[in-house]
């Protein structure tokens, strides 16, 4: 990685000027005789810092001067030299000379060489010579530089002051919403007056213009205020990378850390809380991910492991990825462990897809490291990482792992937590908000498109079953009688690859809003991630999509438990292949309610592997899937001895006759179109095929 010297230089200039200012102050006090030991110590440290940081950037000319000044100050500090007016003047010259050099660095990037006379004079002082009868500015010296007063380009502001400013800005934005509401009220009054007052009409128009102009200005102001609090990711990335190299060494693993995208800026609020999850993921990468040198060598990989820490912009979000080139997550090991820990029954564990198994690592107390080390493996961590990313940072986290090639955790985060796009809806007589990143679709569907599957409602969206629940019911609010308008409004939320359609009463508004945090002691409430203020000055809860999915799952779990299994079907094993998580889940529920044992597979290839490694009495498959489609899977299964005669049912949204024909051609026994899917149809078909 190339060292970005330019960025460091800017930082050096800022820091050096700061220290030189202190040096100057200190020398004035020294000359005035009011400098005590601590004061001399302080200016010594300043000179020392300038020396050190200039050396790091190879600005040797500055280093040289600083070094000499430091030596003299050191002698003053230990008492081997006594301050005298001449000495102070000499030191002052040294400081001025460094200041001039720093200015040159700021302008051109390179300082002029150190003033040889000055250095010689300083050395002479140290050598015990009298304070040199300094040859002040010999005749051949360059003309005195043009004296200009520097004004600082940066101002240091205390963070708390900035936070106050931003909070106040948020209040202004919130209260502006109220103004907009007044405008709506005024239009209402105007209408009520029936246009009888032309003055009122023009007043209303003027006010509208003013409000909108104000809004534009205010949003700009708010944006600018937020930018002030933005910091580059390098603040987190740099120390993390350094720490990881150290950690690798302490574990006897040769590790390099590659970082990209450090310039991307995030709100300080996020930066502060991002460090812990990143460090944790990196540690895991070094500890569990990267194999030992021998293992790596055997696998034909370079002996040193590589950790990648990268960031990129993605719309209004930033994606931070932490990846290693290690052995990948041990999926089967995690599956076993989940069973051993009693989190899952062996059947459940077998039925879960790889992605679902990987999700288990985010459960509290789940650690896959077989040995507990200082570094990781104590089972605290991944759940904390997830909570931090999802709850505190309003983001999402995804895992991608390939055996032998490594694991990558991708965190998708908003740039700022202060303002987010929020959708306001009405349900059960209350207003609720959703942050935009979780909203996948807004649908107004005819009632007959909501079908009943396994005692619960679902809707088909893009070839996928999505469960439908009433938001009011989910939140335990009284559900108002359904409006007679022959349709249902659905807000479809998505967390990773899982979707949930929420029935709502009305869509109210959608705009950028300032999210206010809940008081500390309420943060553990899972359903609410924060609050926004509406035009009426009302507080509205912003709902946490992942918690809604959990709540829906719990509700569903109770519902399915209530259905007594048929009994007669016990022991019949069915393989369900579908790339949509929701569809798989629904089909599984339908079949389990009937007493079937269900195994899930997420695509054709996965299905084929599972079919080969186990035995199934029937296979249900989707058509369009990554890696291998359902037609190919069916044909492949028919070539296997074991699956030549077992029932294969294709479930798809393809309604064309030629698709049906193709399904029969490759050997499927039945072809069910998702559109007219109902559980009776599926179960009846399956039962009749099984005889």
């Amino acid at each position, binding site marked *: 990685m190339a060292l970005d010297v330019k960025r460091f230089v800017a930082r050096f200039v800022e820091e050096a000027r700061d220290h030189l200012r202190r040096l100057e102050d200190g020398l004035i006090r020294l000359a005035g005789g009011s400098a005590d030991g601590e004061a001399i110590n302080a200016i010594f440290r300043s000179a020392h810092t300038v020396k050190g940081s200039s050396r790091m950037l190879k600005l040797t000319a500055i280093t040289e001067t600083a070094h000499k000044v430091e030596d003299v100050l050191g002698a003053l500090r230990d008492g081997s030299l006594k301050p005298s007016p001449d000495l102070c003047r000499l030191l002052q010259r040294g400081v001025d000379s460094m200041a001039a050099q720093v200015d040159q660095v700021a302008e051109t990037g390179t300082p002029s060489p150190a003033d040889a006379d000055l250095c010689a004079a300083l050395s002479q002082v140290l050598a015990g010579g009298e304070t040199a009868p300094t040859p002040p500015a010999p005749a051949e010296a360059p003309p005195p530089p043009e004296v200009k007063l520097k004004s600082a380009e940066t101002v240091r502001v205390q963070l708390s002051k900035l936070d106050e400013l931003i909070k106040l800005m948020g209040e202004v934005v919130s209260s502006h919403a109220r103004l907009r509401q007044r405008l709506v009220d005024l239009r209402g009054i105007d209408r009520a007056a029936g246009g009888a007052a032309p003055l009122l009409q023009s007043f209303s128009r003027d006010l509208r213009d003013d409000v909108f102009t104000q809004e534009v200005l205010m949003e700009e102001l708010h944006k600018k205020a937020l930018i002030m609090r933005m910091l580059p990711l390098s603040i987190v990335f740099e120390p993390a990378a350094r720490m990881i190299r150290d950690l690798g060494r302490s574990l006897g693993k040769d590790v390099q850390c590659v970082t990209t995208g450090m310039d991307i800026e995030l709100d300080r609020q996020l930066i502060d809380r991002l460090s812990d999850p990143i460090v944790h993921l990196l540690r895991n990468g070094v500890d569990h991910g990267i194999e030992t040198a021998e293992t790596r060598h055997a696998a034909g990989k370079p002996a040193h492991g590589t950790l990648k820490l990268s960031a990129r912009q993605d719309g209004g979000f930033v994606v931070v990825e932490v990846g290693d080139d290690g052995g990948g997550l041990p999926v089967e090991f995690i599956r076993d462990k989940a069973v051993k820990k009693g989190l899952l029954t062996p059947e459940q564990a077998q039925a879960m897809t790889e992605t679902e198994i990987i999700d288990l690592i985010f459960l509290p107390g789940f650690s896959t490291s077989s040995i507990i080390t200082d570094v990781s493996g104590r089972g605290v961590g991944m759940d904390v990482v997830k909570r931090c990313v999802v709850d505190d940072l309003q983001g999402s986290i995804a895992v991608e792992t390939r055996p032998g090639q490594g694991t990558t955790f991708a965190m998708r985060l908003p740039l700022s937590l202060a303002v987010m796009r929020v959708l306001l809806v009405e349900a059960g007589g209350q207003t609720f908000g959703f942050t935009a990143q979780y909203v996948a679709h807004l649908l107004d569907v005819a009632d007959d498109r909501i079908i009943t599957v396994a005692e619960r409602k679902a809707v088909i969206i893009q070839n996928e079953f999505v469960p439908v629940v009433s938001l009011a019911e989910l939140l335990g609010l009284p559900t108002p009688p359904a409006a007679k308008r022959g349709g249902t409004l659905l807000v479809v939320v998505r967390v990773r690859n899982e979707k949930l359609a929420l029935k709502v009463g009305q869509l109210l508004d959608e705009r950028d809003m300032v999210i206010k945090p*809940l008081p500390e*002691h309420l943060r553990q409430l899972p359903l*609410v991630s924060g609050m926004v203020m509406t035009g009426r000055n009302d507080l509205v809860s912003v709902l946490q999509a992942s918690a809604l999915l959990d709540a829906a799952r719990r509700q569903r779990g109770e519902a399915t438990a209530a259905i007594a299994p048929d009994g007669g079907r016990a022991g019949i094993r069915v393989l369900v292949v579908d790339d949509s998580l929701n569809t798989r889940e629904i089909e599984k529920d339908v079949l389990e309610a009937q007493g079937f044992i269900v195994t899930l597979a997420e695509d054709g290839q996965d299905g084929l592997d599972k079919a080969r490694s186990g035995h199934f009495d029937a296979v249900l498959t989707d058509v369009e899937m990554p890696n291998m489609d359902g037609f190919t899977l069916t044909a492949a299964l028919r070539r296997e001895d074991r699956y030549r005669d077992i029932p294969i049912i294709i479930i798809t949204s393809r309604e064309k006759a030629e698709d049906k024909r193709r399904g029969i051609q490759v050997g499927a026994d039945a072809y069910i179109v998702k559109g007219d899917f109902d559980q009776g149809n599926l179960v009846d078909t399956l039962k009749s095929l099984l005889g």
Partner: protein
Amino acid sequence: MTDDITPDSGILGLDQVLAVKRGAAGPVVDVDEPSVKLVVFVLGTDWFAFHGERIKEVLSDCPVYFLPGCPTSLEGVINVRGDIESVIRLRVLLRLAEDGGAASGSRILLGQGAGMRSGIRVDRVEDVMDVPQSAIQPPPHTINEHLRPLVLGIVPFQKHMVTVLDLERIFLDYRTGGL
């Protein structure tokens, strides 16, 4: 004072009073004892109080907003000049019987303690007063078992016995899930 107050009238003038005071030799006893400020409020028929230093504000007419998924001990949240604060149903925490909806004189006390801040719903705020420390008596033995740890003492006020509650402890128990 007035001219007609003379020693003859039987009423002592200020000068005389002072003279008498000075004359009555003896050590001056400081009768001031430490006092505490109490915020006295009513829940149903019971009178309670919090220490004044724990109550930052008394809010009235403050709309409370619904918070999905919150426990019954929480009524919802309020907006206090831009900050969101919770509102605790003290009635539920103290396991007092519920009596109808919020009365018209209902107030929210904004309390602070145990590292948290929250509104506390009460039926009526009766008074804010200073009482000498000694006026607070230890809680009687007849007090309810579950209330005992929350009670600092009792103090008589306007023919009522006012139970002084420990807000610090209430908030602490609330946070740790004890209530």
